[in-house]
């Protein structure tokens, strides 16, 4: 079947901070470049979820006059706290003893989704063509093996693969350069990394799952500009994770939890750890009397420098967390994603004008502050494989005394899908019941995300072996998909005494955790029909 095609100088996949920055910088360098940007969400921002305490460094470079452009960057960080939580006690850690990378006094509390909406307006005013609702589902290659562009998803296919009356074939978007900016665990980026062996000689990528809720809280508990992080309870010493609570404008707090996906106990439920965390007296007293107005979750990159793949290949570049530019000890990836996009745009401009090879991306990257940041941060995350306490001691030495300049690099030893221990060797975890005041079940949480996928479309969570979940994963790991999925997509149901693996794909909030954590890598996340997935507001 032949598809229509459209040609551009540059095709960008993904409307997050990295893709939008690439687009803006390209048009700033040469207004005549034809640039288009595809986004799978129904609008820019609707699939964006992030803390977010924002460092403006990259934005200062990209749009130095952002303060005059009515940007949604308003709430300056005014106060910081770091708490170690015990089961019912909390210990405040003096902020002067925090590594410099964890100090936020020059930063802002923002909604990244709103920042992206605003960046999209800037990009459109420069002439970038933005197409929300069009997922890129397939990579197209030239005969010489270089990337030629992408094809968008066919629309109007029923769950058996037949064309409906409303069928609309995907189209081919061909670019002289294609930029992949899908964010963490992009499904096309994953294919490119494999095909071009971009991660050869690198450590396996490390991931986390991050949850976020927005609460409207009582005036007396709200302290606009306060940034608080916690470590410790409810996680044990061997599980990597922690919380954030940012007091934003309009009496809202952004409350979230991040758990490393290298956890070992298949009985662990990241969602329930987050819910339980909110019942800690130090947290509960802030949100009590308030109202939860948003919920969401998204996988994030934690591998950093050691796991960063090569970011160029013939005809294409990876930017942001499609490669993995998040700075873990800083708990920030937006400014680094944006910077990688700026560098990518400069690379592409020289490639198109002066016929320089795309490999100059690597040198430009190495000479940037982004590389320096990631290099100095490299040893923090792997040190936590020794446990929370040793991790903190090492991080103190590494980050405060040596400022990341220790003459060695710790390795990430395992991919996250390899770390689960058999269910019968690990303790079961008894999570408390939801009280519907502070803690909630998954169904009512997913309801808040506005998630929907058009009815009667093919399931976009593909099983390589459809029998594996019941025949193997259930017995060995008690099918952890039931717990690691933050949206209740996966269920094991008993029908006439026979176990059945059910995939409620219409609930999927596109976090990609299943694609990462499934112990046999049996689940592959592919793009559903355009506009499907969550409709996040100011996440």
């Amino acid at each position, binding site marked *: 079947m032949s598809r229509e095609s*459209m040609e551009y100088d540059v095709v960008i996949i993904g409307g997050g901070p990295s893709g939008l920055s690439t687009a803006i910088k390209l048009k700033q360098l040469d207004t005549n470049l034809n640039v288009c940007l595809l986004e799978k969400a129904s609008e820019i921002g609707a699939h964006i979820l992030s803390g977010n305490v924002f460092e403006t460094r990259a934005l200062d470079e990209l749009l130095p006059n952002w303060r005059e452009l009515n940007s949604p960057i308003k709430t300056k960080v005014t106060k910081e706290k770091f708490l170690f939580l015990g089961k019912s006690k909390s210990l405040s850690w003096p902020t002067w003893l925090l590594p410099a990378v964890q100090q936020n006094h020059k930063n802002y509390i923002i909604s990244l989704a709103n920042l992206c909406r605003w960046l999209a307006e800037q990009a459109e005013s420069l002439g970038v063509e933005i197409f929300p609702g069009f997922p890129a589902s397939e990579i197209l290659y030239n005969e010489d093996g270089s990337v030629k562009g992408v094809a968008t998803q066919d629309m*109007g296919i029923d769950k058996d693969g037949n064309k409906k009356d*409303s069928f609309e074939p995907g189209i081919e978007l061909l670019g002289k350069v294609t930029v992949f900016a899908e964010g963490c665990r992009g499904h096309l980026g994953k294919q490119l990394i494999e095909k071009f062996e971009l991660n050869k000689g690198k450590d396996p990528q490390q991931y986390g799952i991050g949850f976020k809720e927005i609460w409207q809280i009582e005036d007396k508990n709200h302290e606009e500009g306060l940034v608080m992080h916690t470590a410790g309870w409810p996680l044990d010493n061997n599980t990597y994770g922690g919380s954030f609570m940012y007091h934003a404008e309009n009496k809202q707090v952004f409350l979230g939890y991040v758990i490393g996906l290298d956890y070992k106990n298949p009985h662990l439920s990241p969602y329930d750890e987050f819910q339980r965390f909110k019942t800690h007296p130090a947290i509960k007293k802030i949100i009590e009397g308030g109202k939860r107005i948003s919920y969401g979750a998204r996988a994030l990159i934690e591998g950093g420098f050691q796991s960063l793949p090569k970011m160029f290949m013939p005809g294409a570049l990876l930017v942001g967390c499609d490669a993995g530019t998040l700075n873990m000890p800083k708990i920030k990836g937006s400014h680094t994603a944006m910077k990688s996009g700026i560098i990518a745009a400069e690379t592409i401009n020289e490639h198109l004008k002066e016929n320089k090879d795309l490999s100059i991306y690597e040198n430009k990257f190495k000479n940037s502050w982004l590389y320096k940041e990631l290099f100095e941060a490299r040893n923090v995350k792997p040190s936590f494989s020794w446990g929370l306490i040793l991790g903190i001691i090492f991080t103190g030495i590494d980050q405060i005394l040596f400022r990341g300049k220790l003459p060695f690099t710790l390795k990430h030893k395992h991919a996250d899908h390899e770390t689960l221990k058999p269910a019968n060797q690990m303790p079961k975890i008894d999570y408390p019941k939801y009280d519907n005041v502070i803690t909630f079940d998954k169904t009512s949480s997913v309801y808040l995300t*506005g998630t*929907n996928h058009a009815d009667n479309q093919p399931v976009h969570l593909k099983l390589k072996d459809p029998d594996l979940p019941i025949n193997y994963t259930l017995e060995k790991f008690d099918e952890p998909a039931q717990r690691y999925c933050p949206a209740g997509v996966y269920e094991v149901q008993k029908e006439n005494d026979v176990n059945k693996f059910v995939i409620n794909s219409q609930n999927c909030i596109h976090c990609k955790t299943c694609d990462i954590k499934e112990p046999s890598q049996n689940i592959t996340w592919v793009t559903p029909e355009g506009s499907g997935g969550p409709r996040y*507001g100011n996440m």
Partner: protein
Amino acid sequence: MKILVAVKRVIDYNVQIRVKEDGTGVVTDNVKMSTNPPDDNAIEEAVKIKEAGNATEVVAVTVGEEKAQETVRKALAVGADRGIHVKVDGILEPLAVSKILQKIVDKEKPDLVFMGKQAIDDDCNQTGQMLSALLNWPQATFASKIDVKDNKLEVTREIDEGLETIEINVPAIVTCDLRLNEPRYASLPNIMKAKKKPIEEIAASDLGVDVSPRLEQLKVEEPPKRKAGIKVANVAELVQKLKNEAKVI
């Protein structure tokens, strides 16, 4: 035959609506907006009639703030020929919209006016009927099937008792039900082409219509939360509770 289709921009049907703290309305900042779903059916039907050779032009019209134009742009991307955007800021009641549409009908002289049966934001279900009265044109509401027959329309209506088929003379107003058809997707090339189609912008004040609200809104609040149910042991207990506690039998 020329068809005018009215479309409205509303909060997307998947979004969970949140009432503002101060009770003055619902939160719309950074909330995903879309075309009112049955308006999509209205556009689709008009485009189908044109594709079947029974209409010559489809004109999409919206009434609302600056960003309401996105709704017209979407209609153009799925086959409308040109658009009209009547700009009004603030609260708009069905009567004001009907009066504006009446002016647009006077100007455009369409043979048919299509719109959704009601909008999912205020659920008024009045604009089509009021326009019909203002123009003194026949109306067919809740249409789930439309057949064009010379200067008549045969319309199947969704009514409480089932389906009702009526025949009306053209010119006419038809309000469309969700069962009427399956709206098509806007393809990328058509979205590109739609960017070049003309949209006429008209200020409501230039039409000489008084759009000031006739209703005073006192307060917007969330419906009360449903209380959790209880389990009863047997029918006798159920009857006893219905009688003595709920007092419904």
